[in-house]
């Protein structure tokens, strides 16, 4: 592990920097997969099919944005999928009791926010490591939904509720896709255009230095945990609406997919660097690959092998690459 980052004598020119960036590479990969898919299957280049393909990454992507910022800040949240399970379970319970749509959405968001707040308190107030805390809450949140539901399922959702996961804003653009684009812009602006975003980078690079330069480290981290919880709640609303049913095993293993998406997007798992556009591109790549595999009838568990290999490969390849290159270049 290198202790100091390599600081170049002068910066690359903008165009050269763009061409050498991780994001550019990802965009190339996305285009290549797009072309490969359209050659492999005649059904791929149909606007409605492509619109369906976006469901493979919209919900995951919604969580990946705040997760990227959280990882940049040097923390991690492995409880996101369990937050979805708990939020979805409580929405299901309310729906069964006859709650209107607005209340259901509100419950989803509040439960997400509450789960994030609980993580935030444990990590920032008690100073506990976020990996262990969120492994604990991952078990706790999903455990609560098992206590409530057991081996049952909630399916009694009101008809209009289906809009969030199945509705279209106009033509082939689904509600989820529009929400994804909107949130990409919001989080992109937050990370790259505000002082809050600068603070997140500062904390990730040097938490002690950030503290001594007057940044309220604990507060920034708490806000990031809250955002992650809130976005998990929003994803829970979309997913529940799309599936129309809730089981305690809903979104099982999603935390891995979200972390993979973030890392694939070029975010350093050790914190300090990464961009939101990178995460958007990673979402596209993962969505296209999953959809392509689906068209080729590859079973889900084989896709998960691919995701696991992708996660390790994406981190391992640059490290192998820099090892092969002679030092000092």
């Amino acid at each position: 592990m290198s202790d100091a980052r390599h600081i170049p004598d002068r910066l690359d020119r903008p165009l050269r920097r763009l061409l050498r960036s991780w994001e550019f590479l990802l965009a190339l990969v996305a285009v290549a997969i797009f072309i490969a898919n359209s050659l492999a299957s005649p059904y791929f280049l149909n606007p409605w099919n492509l619109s369906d393909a976006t469901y493979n990454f919209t919900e995951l992507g919604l969580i990946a944005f705040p997760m990227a910022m959280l990882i940049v800040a040097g923390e991690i949240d492995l409880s996101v999928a369990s937050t979805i399970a708990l939020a979805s379970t409580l929405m299901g319970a309310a729906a069964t009791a006859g709650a209107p749509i607005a209340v259901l959405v509100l419950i989803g968001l509040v439960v997400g926010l509450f789960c994030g707040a609980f993580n935030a308190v444990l990590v920032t107030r008690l100073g506990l490591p976020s990996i262990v805390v969120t492994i604990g809450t991952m078990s706790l949140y999903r455990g609560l939904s098992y206590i409530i539901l057991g081996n049952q399922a909630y399916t009694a959702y009101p008809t209009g509720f289906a809009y969030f996961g199945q509705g279209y804003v106009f033509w082939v653009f689904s509600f989820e896709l529009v929400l994804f684009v909107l949130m990409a812009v919001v989080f992109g602006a937050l990370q790259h255009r505000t002082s809050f975003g600068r603070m997140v980078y500062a904390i990730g690079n040097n938490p002690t230095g950030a503290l001594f330069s007057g940044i309220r480290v604990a507060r920034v981290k708490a806000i990031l945990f809250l955002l992650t919880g809130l976005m998990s709640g929003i994803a829970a609303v979309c997913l529940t609406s799309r599936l129309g049913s809730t089981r305690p095993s809903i979104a099982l293993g999603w935390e891995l997919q979200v972390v993979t998406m973030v890392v694939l997007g070029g975010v350093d798992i050790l914190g300090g660097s990464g961009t939101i556009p990178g995460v958007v591109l990673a979402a596209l790549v993962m969505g296209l690959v999953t959809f392509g595999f689906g068209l080729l009838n590859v079973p889900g568990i084989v896709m998960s092998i691919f995701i696991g290999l992708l996660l390790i490969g994406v981190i391992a390849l640059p490290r192998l690459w820099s090892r092969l290159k002679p030092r000092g270049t």
Partner: protein
Amino acid sequence: MSRALKSREALLGGAILSMVALIAIRFPQFVAPSNLVGTFNDTSPLILLALGEMAVILAKCIDLSVAANLALCGMVAAMMNTMGIPLPLIILAATALGAVVGMVNGLLVWKLDIPPIVVTLGTMTITRGAIFLISGGKWINDQQLSESFKDFPRSVVLGLPVMAWVAIVVALAFAVLIGRTPFGRSLFAVGGNPNAAIYTGINVGRTQALAFTLAGALAGLTGYLWIARYAVAYVDIANGFELDVVAACVIGGISIAGGAGSVAGAVLGALFLGVIKNALPVVGISPFWQMAISGSAILAAVAINARERRRAGRVILKTAESRA
């Protein structure tokens, strides 16, 4: 002496005993010798995996792939059994395969400097997928497994099933390995302060890789025991069990930051969860509570660990940071 009484292990042992006593007041059948033996036997896989995980956590790493590794080795053992391969060879092969999977984790951490949590999250899904690929998603059930394959962990020696004896023997071997060998000392050194460990001539990466290999070998051995005991093998066996394993370690006082913990702690942490798991049906609580209880136990244990560490007093900056 008073230090030994105040130690975390004594505290945890006391908690387990009082829990058993409380249950026994209402449900005396719970402390019948046969039920206690059964409880210990049921907890043996957790003890075995917690010991391996302890070595990994001591060395400042974490292994989330142990349960998937267990399932893979168990499936391979079951498939070898259906081919008629002799039992000793099967056990050896399962253990060796587990060690190889653990070594892959270790090499990725050692040679490529990838954070252990990322490596093992990845290998966890890859290993699960591999089980699907080799088994074609099919189950191997009771009738397809030979009697000798199923009987070995269940056969009773000196009042305890062989599976329980394996856990006891491995725990004793670990006590020697951790407390009395250079490897054991180097685990603590690596976890306590990796930089200082390098200056004292310890190969940090190699020590971590060895810990992963050891955890993998134990997962492989447990894989055979698990499949033989429950007499069925399929893709999702022991799904989510890695969380119980980490929980057992954290409850047992093994610091997730590395460098602190004991064999007794890991065993007691596993027993704590095992007693709860076996008591739930006796007390009449739905088994669906298990997951939430494990989660709460992890959170309570890290919170308590952190308080103890703070009382001991360490770097001032750290406290300042967490209060800000």
